[in-house]
């Protein structure tokens, strides 16, 4: 059967790819698009390792069809850093050792970024509820939650400093 042709935007770049009707967005990212930052953990929406944003809304890429990205904006972990400059969340995850094996990390970062975009001042409870769909089998979560809260605080400070200048 003929493959479907999909035109979409990924991390700000127009992209085209071919897929089968039943392929998930995660299949397309890790296959033809060669963006392997998004991980496949459970492939059933439980673990969050494949988290991306679709039109700025956090979704599991394993729970959407690749063809559904037609005409929409996708952001993945590959779009988080600015060139060689890490996103503050990435930097803080490194400093705080908020990762061990690293499989959950891309999803954690994408989800945390989505949280901070809509809530720059999250409480610890906000962070824990928001990240409830991101499973990690190594860190025990505390270091991740701390890294997100500290990044939020630093980004707020940075924002204030910049707006004063």
């Amino acid at each position, binding site marked *: 059967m003929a493959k479907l042709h999909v035109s979409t935007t990924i991390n700000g770049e127009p992209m085209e790819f071919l897929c089968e009707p039943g392929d998930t967005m995660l299949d397309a990212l890790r296959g033809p698009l060669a963006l392997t930052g998004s991980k496949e953990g459970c492939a*059933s929406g439980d673990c969050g390792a494949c988290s991306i944003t679709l039109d700025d809304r956090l979704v599991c890429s394993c*729970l959407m069809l690749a063809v559904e990205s037609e005409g929409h904006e996708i952001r993945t972990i590959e779009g988080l850093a600015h060139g060689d400059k890490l996103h503050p969340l990435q930097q803080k995850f490194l400093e705080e050792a908020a990762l061990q094996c690293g499989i959950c990390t891309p999803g954690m970062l994408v989800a945390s970024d989505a949280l901070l975009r809509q809530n720059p001042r999250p409480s610890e409870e906000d962070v824990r509820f928001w990240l409830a769909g991101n499973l990690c089998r190594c860190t025990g979560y505390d270091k991740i939650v701390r890294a997100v809260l500290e990044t939020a605080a630093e980004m707020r400070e940075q924002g204030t400093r910049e707006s004063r200048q």
Partner: protein
Amino acid sequence: MRYLAPGTLDEAIKAFAAAGSAARILAGGTDLLVQMRSGAVKPGVIVNIKKIAEMTAIEETAGGGFRIGAAVSGAVLGEHPRFGKVWPGVLEAVNLIGSTQVQGRASAGGNLCNGSPAGDSVPAMVAAGAVVTLQGPNGRRELPVEKVPAGPGRTNLLPGEILVNFTLPPRPPGSSDAYLRMIPRTEMDIAVVGVGVSLTLKDGVCTAARVGLGAVAPTVLLVEAAAKALIGSKLDDAALNAAAAACSAACRPIDDKRGTIAYRTKVAGVLLKRTVAIAAKRAGGK
């Protein structure tokens, strides 16, 4: 497998009906993709309904009610400026479906049509008195939401019918609602019991109530006896005990790893009381 994303409801119905039992509707997709992955479902045709404006719209009706498209995601519903103020219980139920990521896609329409007795949005929609609009090859019809589930994984939709939207009625002053569920973990599990309560208070007296009960029978239940026990009372202990007993009496649950029959039956009554207390507080009572 073929994939279709029609722009109008008529096209969707034509394509869906033509493909027969091999066709599957894609709303949020959070159940369908899991079923496809596990091999439980092998669709010949997938009909994505999210390109149909009616399916993704949230409208306030002229009388002060709401009409919610079947494919509106929980995240989109949560961002609506008014919906959560008028129907906080329905919103909290919809926003308990899965994680933040799942909320980005999952819809109340899919939650209902998936036919799970434990679907979180369903008891709250039942309590709200929501009416669904269905459209199929033989036209459009309306059905109270509690008439949709037929059993685990089954609905009363006719062949070729698609769920279009939910209509929630206008609310008199002094009305509110709430939804509570019991799950074994703090987050991210399915309900062992789910209770939705919608009520209206006037001078401290309950003048209207509806109770929806989930995960304790093959389908979500409308518990009219519980509502009857609340209506006319000041939600005093006697009324609450009677309503709780009515909920427990309505239970026909399964025993499983999440809860025994005895546990689910008892919790149904306990949750009823807690849910009434939250709804009453929101409605302006104590």
